[in-house]
């Protein structure tokens, strides 16, 4: 196999972000939530390599802890959305009929509702927390997955290899699992990685609106939100989390493309 640039680059970027997150769980340069009002809004210099924020907290330490929170939230949310969406899509597309109509009516109702609004409503009810965000965003993104899966399944189930599987005497469940589901993987890898990016952004948006991971725990989203009033005076406050978000998105997208190519036997 030839060396894949997108695999190497995407892998390195994500490994760097994940490494940062892992390090944060055992060591950070400073306590990420320790307030020091005498050092507030310090420009990046030794020992505060990325400066301090409006409460004098070390930006680098907060960024590291934020990486951990952000990656966990994004990863688990994508898993939740995928699990839900794939199940709904496979069942609806394969069995058609009433199953399809019922599931898709529900799905379309959710899709018709802006995802972020849905998450907002849910979080208002259950209160902002890390796992609350995972649940809310997972539910908000699942319908998109279900749509994509159902579309693939609808075209796959007309293919003759699916009929051949029936003619062999395989059960519907086996056919669905062995022949239909694996062939939905290509569009899903791309969707999953894009979604990883959307979730990081949505989490930032929710934090911005005050419904994200509650302060003082740092996330890239609430750091970005808090940095907004200081955009002109303390630029480093927005640049640091912004660059981290951008690098994670770039990493996941590159890795997603590479994964799709690797998982497709035709390439």
């Amino acid at each position, binding site marked *: 196999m030839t060396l894949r640039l997108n695999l190497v680059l995407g892998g390195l970027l994500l490994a760097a972000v994940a490494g940062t997150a892992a390090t944060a769980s055992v060591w950070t340069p400073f306590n990420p939530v320790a307030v020091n009002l005498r050092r507030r809004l310090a420009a990046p210099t030794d020992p505060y390599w990325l400066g301090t924020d409006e409460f004098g907290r070390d930006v680098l330490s907060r960024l590291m802890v934020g990486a951990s929170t952000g990656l966990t939230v994004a990863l688990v949310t994508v898993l939740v959305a995928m699990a839900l969406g794939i199940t709904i899509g496979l069942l609806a597309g394969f069995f058609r009929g009433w199953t399809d109509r019922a599931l898709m009516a529900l799905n379309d109702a959710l899709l018709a509702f802006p995802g972020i609004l849905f998450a907002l409503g849910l979080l208002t009810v259950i209160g902002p927390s890390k796992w609350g965000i995972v649940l809310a965003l997972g539910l908000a993104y699942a319908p998109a997955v279900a749509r994509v899966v159902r579309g693939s399944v609808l075209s796959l189930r007309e293919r*003759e290899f699916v*009929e*051949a599987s029936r*003619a062999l005497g395989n059960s519907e469940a086996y056919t669905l699992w062995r*022949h239909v589901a*694996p*062939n939905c993987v290509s569009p899903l890898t791309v969707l999953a990685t894009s979604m990883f990016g959307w979730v990081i952004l949505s989490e930032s948006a929710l934090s911005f609106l005050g419904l994200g991971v509650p302060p003082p725990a740092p996330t890239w989203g609430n750091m970005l939100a808090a940095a907004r009033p200081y955009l002109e005076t303390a630029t480093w406050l927005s640049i640091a989390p912004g660059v981290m978000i951008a690098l994670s998105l770039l990493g996941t997208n590159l890795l997603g493309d590479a994964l799709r190519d690797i998982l497709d036997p*035709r390439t």
Partner: protein
Amino acid sequence: MIAPLLAVSDLRVGAKPDIRAVDGVSFSMAPGEILALVGESGSGKTATARAVIGLLPPGLAVTGGRIAFAGAPLTPATLRPLRGPGIGMVFQEPMTSLNPALPIGVQMAEGLALHTRLRGAEIAAACRAMLDRVGIADPTACLRAFPHEFSGGMRQRIMLASVMLLRPRLLIADEPTTALDTLTQAEVLDLMVGLTREQGSAVLLITHNLGLVARYADRALVMRRGRVIEEGAARALLAAPREPYTRALVDALPRRGPPAIPRPPSEPLLRAEALAVDFAGRRRFFARGRAVQAVRGVDLAVHAGESVALVGGSGSGKTTLGRAMLRLVPASGGRVLFRGQDITAVRGAALLPFRLACQIVFQDPYSSLDPRMRIAEIVDEPLRLVPGLGAAERARRTDAMLDAVGLAEFGRRHPHELSGGQRQRVAIARALVREPAFVMADEPVSALDMTIQKQILTLLRDLQRARGFACLFISHDLAAVGEIADRVVVMQEGRIVEEGSRDAVFDAPRHAYTRALLDAAPRLEALVA
């Protein structure tokens, strides 16, 4: 000698870095001549024709040689006004060559508006006259209709009509009937040749089917690997081919096999009794469309070890009947009996003995294999359901089966790495690995090149002799059927219209539809005699 209409000399078409699709092809065509360009997939016949009309697919380009039309060299600048009134083209796939979003009338009018001074009502009148000429029943309604309202054969007539409206001096027809059944194929080609003779147009007919060459062409060029390897008057070329490759192509034309060995009467293995299949009509806004009666009460029995051909045109219900007998589509009336047992309503695990004993080979080897599985996995999968089979025994049987279809080395590959013929071998291996008593083959060779068709048919026949399974061979092509069948059953509009031993049906057909099918099938014996 008359000045040639089209003169191609030393034409080269290629792609970077070193692909030569057409490698130094020269030929010329006289006005009004019908020239066949014969060859198999990848021979460069389509690339040659597309180079003439300047419609090469992206990536391919003319890299050398000259093309002259009516004495003047063809360049991109001189070509454009010639497309339509000078050179017209009919494409292979009638399902995609008309724009589904525009009514027929609008599409037909485009050429006339661009190339003639006709306007409005005159254009409509010309279109109606031409549609009438190609046998469209109601031309006025047709102009307002959309392509999806017509069958493949009708669309190809409409395509032909809109091209011939401009009275081209050269018509390029690229496998114009490969997607159609034999009967429709003969109708469309008869029409095409009749129309071009009327208008004095020359035809460049691209085909892989030598039977059509003998019937319609004056002259033929045989192409292989981008070169012309043989050229001559069509019939002489088929009767006495000089090149071994041409001989192989001629030999691949289906011939009638040896007469069937009479077998003692036995209990039928699989039997349909008054079997009917309806498809619910299309759902509309407030109601359903009319239900389609695909199969209307058919009795058909297949005995052990026997080879039965089920023949009919598109829409005759033959495929639906086959699938209903295999319990792949639900029957709406009648019964299916397997070894004397009614299995019409049997479901789930109780159906397993039937599934183990009956298998199917599909038409399209590109769609019938799971693209994510390796060949050995595909052939091994059916054994999963055979009770009491160990892993070692499964592997042994998979290997033996792959060996039997000539693919011993291919177990680790994926379907996309195989050619169409090889894929069909995999499909056959998958169907046979459980040693079924009955195999249904639904047009198993119609998607393949002629020489590959021959190989697959021979393989099927040899395997059937060795293993003794019964075979229901579904096809629109009586010629291919003659090679393999003991008994022939002819279906039309959901009913069986004729049934008998192959020789009886071929030599003394009783039903008019059977006679039409036989006349339409390109058979070598009749053509070069």
